[in-house]
């Protein structure tokens, strides 16, 4: 049995969390860069639904939403990461007279929030790996 590490439910969930956070960081960078562009609307990513992730992780080992392969000649299909997370106009900001709706303070809070959550996820990942090492007697 070829066990792929990223097929483990915990690691797969962390992987998805980290991809989401990095995609969000990308959207926030665009907001901050466009802080003086007239007519620019601030955007943010839709939060991932924990129930969905948990459901996917516990019932379907390939919860990334791709096609299952039941034959060695099948080609696995996984949706591209950026297409998977939809972005939306961020709701709580009022546009200034030039039509720009980026609030620098709000964006800074979001950036540090994303960074902290990414740190948490990567720490959990490292912890899971070290537990695995303990289990195989390597650590």
């Amino acid at each position, binding site marked *: 049995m070829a066990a792929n590490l990223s097929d483990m439910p915990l690691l797969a969930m962390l992987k998805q969390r*980290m*991809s989401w*956070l*990095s*995609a969000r*960081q*990308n959207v*926030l*960078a*665009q907001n*901050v*860069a*466009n*802080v*003086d*562009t007239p007519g*620019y609307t601030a955007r943010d990513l839709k939060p991932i639904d924990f129930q969905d992730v948990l459901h996917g992780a516990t019932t379907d080992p390939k919860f990334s939403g791709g096609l299952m392969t039941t034959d060695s000649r099948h080609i696995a299909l996984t949706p591209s*990461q*950026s297409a998977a997370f939809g972005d939306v106009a961020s709701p709580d900001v009022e546009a200034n007279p030039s039509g720009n709706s980026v609030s*620098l303070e709000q*964006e*800074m809070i979001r*950036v*540090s929030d*994303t*960074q902290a959550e*990414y*740190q948490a996820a*990567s720490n959990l*990942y*490292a912890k899971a*790996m*070290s537990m695995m090492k303990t289990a195989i007697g390597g650590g």
Partner: protein
Amino acid sequence: MDFTTSLIVAASGMRAQSDRMRVIAENIANANSTAATPGGDPYRRKIATVKSEFDRELGATLVTPGKPVADSTEFRLQYDPGNPNADPKGYVKLPNVNSLVEIMDMREAQRSYEADLTVMDASKAMLTRTVDLLRK
């Protein structure tokens, strides 16, 4: 890699802000530049513009500095008959630069630049964090 995209986007914002800063510096430096010929027009204030541009290869919205546009407000007139550039009535036209406005713009550009820098720092820290997983 996604974090590299964030870094590129933040860098484009910083480039746009520093371009804006250059235009502001030109305005402040030329706040008292009169015309070369008597009665002619002095330095006209420039306004920096930025526009956003979707980069298909990157899949992100970058910022590019636009062409500076001329400020069409009136020139200041000062009675100074001794000035070599004065018109026959003794008035000299001075540039339509208001240093208070320029300094306000400068602070705004500086603030936006710092915000871009913060985003860059955060992205870099997250990237390092990911690479650090290899060490554990």
